[in-house]
């Protein structure tokens, strides 16, 4: 398969993830869509690493996975804290930080 196919698929997945972040309002689903975008980036990294024939892009993809895991842990901790305070789980209603 051409590398081009993988990169186009990756950009399609990224666009779907970005669309989901714009459409959905539940913080859990927004985190899921963030995962989609990070995974699309990972697919592009691995595809380019195969294109060059160099394994360093795969190391970069693994570091991206670590960052995604950290982001999930902190994000889900925030969601649990919001739920404990009996605040609404909706990003449009949680806008006290908006200027």
């Amino acid at each position, binding site marked *: 398969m051409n590398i*081009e196919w993988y990169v186009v698929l990756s950009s399609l997945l990224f666009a779907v993830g970005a669309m*989901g972040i714009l459409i959905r309002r539940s913080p859990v689903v927004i985190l899921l869509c963030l995962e989609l975008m990070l995974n699309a980036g990972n697919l592009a990294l691995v595809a380019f690493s195969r294109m060059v024939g160099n394994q360093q892009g795969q190391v970069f993809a693994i570091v991206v996975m670590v960052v995604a895991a950290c982001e999930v*842990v902190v994000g889900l901790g925030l969601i649990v804290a919001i739920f404990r305070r009996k605040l609404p789980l909706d990003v449009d209603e949680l806008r006290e930080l908006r200027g």
Partner: protein
Amino acid sequence: MEAVLFFIAAIGALGGAIGVVALRNPFYSVLALIVHLFSLAVLFLLLSSAFVAAAQVVVYAGAVMVLYVFVVAYVGGGEESAWEPIPGQQFIAPLLGVAIFVELAIAVLSSALLALGTDGPAVKAGFGDPAAIGHLLLEKFLVPFEASSILLLLAAVGAIVLAARREPSRGVGRGSSEHSSEAPAERSEDPRPTPSHAGGVPS
């Protein structure tokens, strides 16, 4: 054979991604994301990166998704309210998503990377297997490896601090827990009277 596998995995990945966005119940969104992640692992295997595929299945589909399932089961998958602060958001957002894809497609298809249209160079048998990645991680990329481990540690500590249950019945933690549970309520009530008061003074 490779093309057939690619298209099956690509359809799975794309269908999983659309399922995450389109399904109303967050629990089904998590399940769709698991389908997406497994399809991506197949794509990684096709790109001859076995270790990344294994890490994808073990770390993402195994650990992270279990965390998501726990949190969705804890907070409950409620329906989203129909209230929209931005009118027409449901129609503008897909247009913006399509615009991002068109932009990325133009960037990819018009790029000067000549090797993009090839299958990539022929690689040795050990390309992307755990031994090669481990050598790279522990020899060439030791500092990023350690930095990411510190990041993981900080995230774990932060999650414990964020989500820790503060017991109101303990003697020592009493004052601080009462403060922390009452402060947001005060903050949410305070700003509303203040602007009208402040706006009333100059006039």
